[in-house]
C-alpha cells in the first residue's frame, strides 16, 4: 500500500520533471525567435540591396541625382533630408523636453505628477499618421499664413538667413517636417530625462541647497553635470525615433528629391522615399529602396546602441 503510493508519487515527480525540462526548452526556443527575426531582417535587406550596390557601386552613396526613370539612384537627397529634419527636431525638442522634465521632477506639486506624466505619455501613444494629418491640415496653414511671411520679412536682407528662410509659402518642407518630428519625440526624451533626474541622489541636491543654491542653481550645477551622460542617451533615443519616422514626415516634407538649404523648400527623407515610391518600384529601383531601408536600419541601430550604452552607464553607477 505505502510502497505503491510512493511509487505513484515518484512517477508524478518524474512526469513533472519531464514537463519541467520540456517547458524550459520551449521557452528558450520561443525566445530565440527574437534573434532569428533580427538575423532574417538583416539578411534579407542586405541580400535585396546587393544588385544596386553592385551595379552603381560608390555612386549610390555619393550621387545627388535620384531619377528612377533614367536609372539614376543617388541617396544624398534622402540622407540629407533625414539628417536635417532629425537634427532640427532635436534642437527644438531637447530644451523643451528638458524644461518639462525639470518641471515634473522639481516644481510640479506631487498630487499632479501622475496625471501630467500620463498626459505626456498620451502624446507618445498617438499614432504618427494622426500627427501627419494634424501637421498637414492645422500646422501647415498656420506656418504658411503667419510664421513664414514673418521669417521671410525679418531676414530678407540678412546674409545666409535670407536663403535659409526662403521658399514657397505653403507651410511644407524641411522645417515643418522637423516641427512635427519635434512634437513627436518630446514625450520620449522627456520620459528618459525624468527617469534620469529621479536617479540623482537626494543628498547631492541637499548639499547644494545647504550651500545656499536655489533650485535652478542646484539643477544647473549639480543635477545636470551628474546626469549629462544619460541625458545624451535620452537625446539619442529621440534621434532614433526621428530618423525612422515615416508617415508624419511623408505628410509634411513635400516629397521632392532635392537638396536645398531653404528650410521651407520641399525635400525627402529616407523613410518618405521608401513610402512614396515603393508601389511603382521594380528591379533596380526596388533594390535601391531596400538599400535605403538597410541604411536607415543601420543608422537607427547605431544610434540606439550608443543611447543604450550611455543610459546604462549612469543607471549602473
Amino acid at each position, binding site marked *: 500500500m505505502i510502497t505503491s503510493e510512493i511509487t505513484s508519487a515518484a512517477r508524478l515527480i518524474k512526469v513533472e520533471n519531464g514537463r519541467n525540462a520540456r517547458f*524550459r526548452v520551449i521557452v*528558450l526556443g520561443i525566445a530565440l525567435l527574437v534573434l532569428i*527575426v533580427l538575423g532574417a531582417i538583416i539578411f534579407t*535587406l542586405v541580400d535585396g540591396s546587393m544588385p544596386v550596390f553592385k551595379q552603381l557601386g560608390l555612386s549610390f552613396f555619393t550621387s545627388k541625382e535620384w531619377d528612377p526613370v533614367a536609372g539614376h539612384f543617388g541617396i544624398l537627397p534622402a540622407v540629407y533630408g533625414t539628417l536635417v529634419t532629425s537634427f532640427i527636431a532635436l534642437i527644438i525638442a531637447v530644451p523643451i523636453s528638458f524644461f518639462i522634465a525639470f518641471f515634473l521632477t522639481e516644481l510640479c506639486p506631487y498630487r499632479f505628477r501622475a496625471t501630467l506624466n500620463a498626459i505626456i505619455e498620451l502624446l507618445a501613444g498617438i*499614432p504618427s499618421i494622426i500627427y501627419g494629418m494634424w501637421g498637414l491640415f492645422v500646422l501647415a496653414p498656420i506656418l504658411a499664413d503667419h510664421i513664414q511671411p514673418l521669417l521671410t520679412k525679418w531676414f530678407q536682407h540678412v546674409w545666409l538667413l535670407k536663403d535659409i528662410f526662403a521658399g514657397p509659402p505653403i507651410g511644407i518642407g524641411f522645417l515643418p517636417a522637423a516641427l512635427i518630428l519635434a512634437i513627436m519625440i518630446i514625450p520620449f526624451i522627456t520620459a528618459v530625462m525624468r527617469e534620469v533626474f529621479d536617479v540623482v541622489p537626494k543628498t547631492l541636491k541637499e548639499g547644494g541647497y545647504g550651500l545656499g543654491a536655489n*533650485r535652478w542653481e542646484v539643477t544647473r550645477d549639480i543635477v545636470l553635470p551628474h546626469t549629462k551622460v544619460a541625458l545624451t542617451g535620452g537625446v539619442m533615443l529621440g534621434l532614433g525615433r526621428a530618423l525612422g519616422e515615416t508617415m508624419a514626415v511623408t505628410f509634411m516634407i513635400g516629397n521632392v528629391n532635392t537638396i536645398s538649404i531653404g528650410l521651407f523648400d520641399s525635400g525627402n527623407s529616407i523613410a518618405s522615399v521608401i*513610402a512614396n515610391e515603393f508601389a511603382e518600384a521594380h528591379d533596380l529601383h526596388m533594390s535601391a529602396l531596400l538599400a535605403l531601408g538597410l541604411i536607415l536600419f543601420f543608422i537607427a541601430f547605431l544610434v540606439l546602441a550608443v543611447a543604450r550604452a550611455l543610459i546604462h552607464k549612469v543607471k549602473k553607477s
Partner: protein
Amino acid sequence: MATYTMTPFFNFKRKFVNKAVLTLATVISILGMALPFWILFTVIQRGFGSFNWALITQITPPPMAEGGLLNAIVGSFLMVGLAMVIAAPIGIFTGVYLAEYGRESKLASLIRFVNDVLLSAPSIVIGLFVYIIMVVPMHHFSGYAGVVALAIIAVPVMVRTTENMLLLVPDVMREGSLALGSSKRQAILRICLPAAKNGIITGILLALARISGETAPLLFTALNSPYYSTDLSQPIANLPNTIFQFAMSADDGWISLAWAGAALISLYVVIINLVARLVFARNTTGK
C-alpha cells in the same frame, strides 16, 4: 564649483535668473501638456461631423460619393486581432525566459539587446522585410503579410513589459513555491504569471494600441482595398492606409472621411491607454 553668496547685486541677479527659469519651465510645460488636447480636439472636431451610421455600415466610397469606413474597420480589426494572437504568447514566453531563466546569462542579455533593437527599429523597415519574405514569394499583397508585420512590431513591446512585470514579483514567492516541492515550471505558470497578470494585460493593451495605428508597415504588406473583404490571403482594406490615401487626396468627401477615421483611431488608442493605466494601477497598489 559655483559660489552662491555674493554681493547684493549678484543675489538679486541669482534670484531673478532662478525665477525666470522656473517660470519658463512652467510655461513650457503647460504648453506641452496642452498639445495633446489641441491635437485630439482638432481630430474630433473635424471628424465628428462624419460620425453617423453610414460610417460603420457602408464601405469606402469612390471619389465624389458618399460612404463609410466599414471595410477598413473590419480589415484593421482582423489584422490587428490576429497579430496580437500570434504576438502575445511569443512575447510573454520570451519575457518569461528573460526574467525566470536568463537573468544573468549572456544569451539573455543578447536577446534583451536584440529585442530593444527590434523595439526601436523603424517600422517601415519591418514592412520591407515582410514584403521580401511574404509578398514576393506569394506574388501579391495580402492581409497575412500585414498580420506578420504587425506581430513583429508587437512582440518586442510584449517582451519588455512581461519581463519588467515578472521582475516585480518578489523572489520570496518563487522560493516559497519551490520549497513546497513545485517544479520551476509550476512556479512560473501557477505563481509568477498569475501574480504579474495585470501587468501583462497592460502590456497586451499597449501593444494593441501601438499596432492599431501603424501605417508604414502596411503600405507594402496588406496594401489597401476599396472593397469589403474578410479574406486575409488577398490585399485588404485597413484604417491607417485608408486615412493616408484619403487625407492626401483632393476630394473633400474623402478628406472628411479621413478625419472621421483619424478620430476613430485616436479615441480608440486613448481609451486603450486609459484602460491599460487603470489595470496597471490595480496591479501595483495590490488590488
